[in-house]
């Protein structure tokens, strides 16, 4: 049973690693679908909480997969999930790296960049919508999403931790004084 779960964690995440154009944000939608809707390993609430933790802690956003692995199957799950999300894409980068630096400045570099950037941007918004649906529990979280986004566009230098603490404090305040 446990080994089956670990294998399943790997087979869900590893293909997403190869498809994670534009970084971790492209995998939130498919991860939510697989882990919450299909496997029912964790609740939508836990999914959102793990996302929040992964963003509040140091490290790349894809450590989110590590946290999901941990929540589902403990330390073994965390290790398997980490290997699944980092190994496949890393092998691709390693393999392409040789060819890439030898052919620097070629036209196909530019075509790949120009072609894949909008794809990554679209997938990022797909991730945002998936997460926003999970968080849209009343008016306040939606307002926080909008205000933080606007503030961040306006003043990019504000430290992320300040936003995270303010968001948490606002919602706690709303709970405590409601």
């Amino acid at each position, binding site marked *: 049973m446990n080994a089956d779960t670990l294998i399943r964690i790997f087979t869900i995440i590893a*293909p*997403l690693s190869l498809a*994670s154009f*534009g970084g*971790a944000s492209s995998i939130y*939608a*498919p991860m939510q679908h697989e882990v919450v809707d299909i496997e029912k390993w964790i609740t939508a609430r836990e999914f959102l*909480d793990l996302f*929040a933790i*992964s963003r*509040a*802690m140091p490290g*790349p*956003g*894809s*450590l989110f997969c590590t946290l999901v692995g*941990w929540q589902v199957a403990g330390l073994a799950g965390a290790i398997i999930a*980490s290997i699944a999300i980092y190994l496949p*894409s*890393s092998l*691709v*980068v390693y393999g*392409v*790296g*040789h060819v*890439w*630096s030898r052919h620097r*400045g070629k036209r196909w570099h*530019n075509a*790949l960049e*120009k*072609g*894949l*950037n909008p*794809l990554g*941007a*679209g*997938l*990022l*918004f*797909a*991730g*945002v*919508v998936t997460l926003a649906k999970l*968080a849209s529990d009343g008016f*306040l979280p939606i307002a926080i*999403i909008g*205000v*933080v986004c606007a503030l*961040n*566009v306006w003043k990019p230098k504000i*430290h992320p*931790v300040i*936003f*995270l603490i303010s*968001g*948490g*404090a606002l919602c*706690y305040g709303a*709970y405590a004084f409601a």
Partner: protein
Amino acid sequence: MDQTRRVPLSEIYRTFFVIGLFSFGGGLVSWIYRDTVDVRKWMSREDFLPGVALAQVMPGVSSTNCAIYVGQILRGWLGALTAITAMLSAPFLISLAAAWAYKSLLHIPGFQETMIGVAAAAIGMLMRTGVEAARPQIRDISAMAVMIASFLAVGVFRFPLVPVICVMGPISVALAWPSAKAEGAK
């Protein structure tokens, strides 16, 4: 890629460990640049820069991709493995500690509500990254079409990601081909 000096793996580990430990909210590629090119002079600017585009274009997180590229240039596959392991080791342990603490905090009244606020702020910041990524696409009709189509396919219609990438990726690169340029012959 001339190796004037073999950078010890322990130095690679130390450098990327620190970068990983203090990595909050993006901007890491420029940090890696500063540490490896400006401060430690492990490689030239010309050797580093192709890695930025590579890290961005390939699947995966750009910061860890960049670490692999740098590690590979410095010390081959061992260097790449050292760099990514170093970069992830501190965040891995810290995140697990946080997830462990999370489980024991769940029963505290108001904790769940607080977490929603933290998540909402994180989503807002992610959305800002999306806005920045979308900006350069606005003037290009085919790029806009690809962006909206991939958003709708995965975010609204919930099509599985891998087939969407396999179809949209080649189409998008083909659409970009006519306007793609070679940057100065080398």
